């Protein structure tokens, strides 16, 4: 039997599936679990890799080959939100998480794609520079936000099919966050630039917004008084954004060019905006 696209690497032909053992320590740092660092390893070799000083990967995970996947794909079966910092500083390949991810998913991501079948904890995409994160479930607080030691999201794309918690896009600098299920309170707080798209969000959106755009379908409740209403106008870039989201196969109601523009935060320079699609 010949496996396609596997000849060059000898016996290390497949991706890996790692399944978290129930007896693994509660709070685990998953920063080392990268497709590139495990690529080409046999399950036995991967199991001997250090996960943290003094802990081998095999102590916390059962490791299987994934013959259906190319060797730059890694699948983690995690169960609950125990594994923090999954995909940290990853720069290529595909990381698939079956189950939930913990805090700091995709922190400092530089490339590649992370797909989480479940939800994720706080600070997903903190400091993300490039690459794509897809979360099928809900995300915690500070989505794309500035975790300690990191700036907010700096590039790339962060797509959440479910809901996001409070302060999504906090201090975000560049890139795209889209949340199909809507965001919690303080969405876009202190955002420096970038784009956050959600059908709706909680109270006090955009507080301290310096530049950047929140694109919403419903006007958020308790809008800060430091936003002024610019009325309704046509914004071609929303059509451009709509095409991009479609290309990313991310489902949202269609974005019309027509939107109400709220400008602020006037306390923080007044160069940001909240666009309410459809006026």
């Amino acid at each position: 039997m010949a496996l396609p696209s596997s000849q060059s690497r000898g016996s290390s032909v497949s991706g890996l599936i790692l399944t978290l053992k129930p007896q693994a320590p509660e709070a685990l740092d998953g920063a080392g679990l990268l497709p590139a660092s495990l690529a080409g390893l046999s399950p036995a070799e991967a199991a001997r890799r250090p996960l943290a000083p003094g802990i081998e990967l095999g102590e916390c995970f059962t490791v299987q080959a994934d013959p259906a996947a190319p060797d730059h794909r890694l699948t983690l079966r995690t169960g609950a939100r125990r594994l923090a910092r999954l995909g940290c500083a990853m720069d290529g390949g595909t990381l698939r998480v079956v189950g939930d991810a913990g805090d700091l998913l995709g922190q400092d991501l530089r490339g590649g794609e992370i797909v989480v079948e479940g939800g994720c904890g706080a600070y997903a995409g903190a400091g993300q520079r490039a690459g794509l994160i897809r979360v099928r479930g809900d995300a915690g607080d500070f989505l794309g936000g500035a975790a300690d030691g990191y700036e907010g999201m700096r590039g790339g794309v962060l797509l959440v099919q479910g809901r996001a918690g409070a302060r999504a896009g906090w201090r975000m600098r560049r890139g795209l966050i889209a949340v199909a299920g809507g965001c919690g309170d303080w969405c876009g707080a202190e955002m420096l630039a970038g784009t956050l798209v959600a059908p709706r969000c909680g109270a006090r959106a955009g507080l301290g917004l310096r530049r950047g755009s929140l694109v919403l379908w419903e006007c958020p409740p308790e809008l800060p008084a430091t936003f002024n209403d610019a009325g309704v106008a046509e914004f071609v870039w929303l059509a451009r954004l709509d095409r991009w989201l479609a290309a990313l196969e991310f489902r949202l109601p269609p974005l019309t060019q027509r939107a109400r523009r709220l400008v602020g935060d006037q306390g923080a320079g007044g160069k940001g905006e909240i666009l309410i699609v459809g006026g």
Partner: protein
Amino acid sequence: MAEYVRNGVRIDDTFAEAFGMRATRLLVTADHPRWAHAAAASACGFATSVIGCGCEAGVEAELDPAATPDGRPGVALLLFAVSREALAEQVERRVGQCLLTCPTTAVYAGIEGEDRIPLGRRLRYFGDGHQRSKVVDGRRLWRIPVMEGEFLIEDDTAAVRAIGGGNLLILARTRESALLAAESAVAAARAGRGAILPFPGGVVRSGSKVGARRYPKLGASTNDAFCPSLRGSTDSALEPQVGCVLELVFDALTEADMQGAMRAALAAICARGGAGGVLRVSAGNYGGKLGKYHFHLRDILPEQDP
């Protein structure tokens, strides 16, 4: 000169001598195709020859809404100039005067390349501090507030190496037969991608030679050897039956594009055939001394008589 014959049309075994140019492609979208065309007509106006216009430009193709970056109808423009700097200057002027001003348009770079020239990078200052940058799908866009809403323009575009000066000469019995052949040739060439024919209707009647005999300061003057009315006055290249000569001039992004456009045009001319009044097809060159690219007609002949 060896000759090939197709459908009664003699084809000289010569070549069109073409030059290296710099080019870019812009995608112009609008709420309605007529506004995209209005913008394109202005932006590509007075852009027949780099000699007097600074650049050569034309509509390359009409774009289906599904194929544009913002899902709106649009057109693709190609602009050619003699250098990167000249191209940048022309792009800025034409976009600033003709696209920024035109209702509903947006402008995107339509070509990839390492060498970037500004597109909206300087025009953004029209926004007087109110312009906003957006990075969408890896592209930096500028949103410039205008009275109608916002003018959306990409930050930069690529200046790619390209080819100008491809040409065909149609030698026909009458002006009518020459025009009909030329029109069908232009229509055939414009159906493809990657090339434009920058002259009015794609056709030029004032073919030129380098310099002038009478006026030393002139850079170019009429191609007397191909002017039927001068057969008695100069060393004419025309046989007595030729009553009219028209030239097609092509600019293309690549050699393949150039060949494709010229091949389509030649095929259309040959399809008119001797019966349609076309006698001969030739091409202009300078003996191969000036241009880097030689497009031999023998390489683009129709397979056989159509």
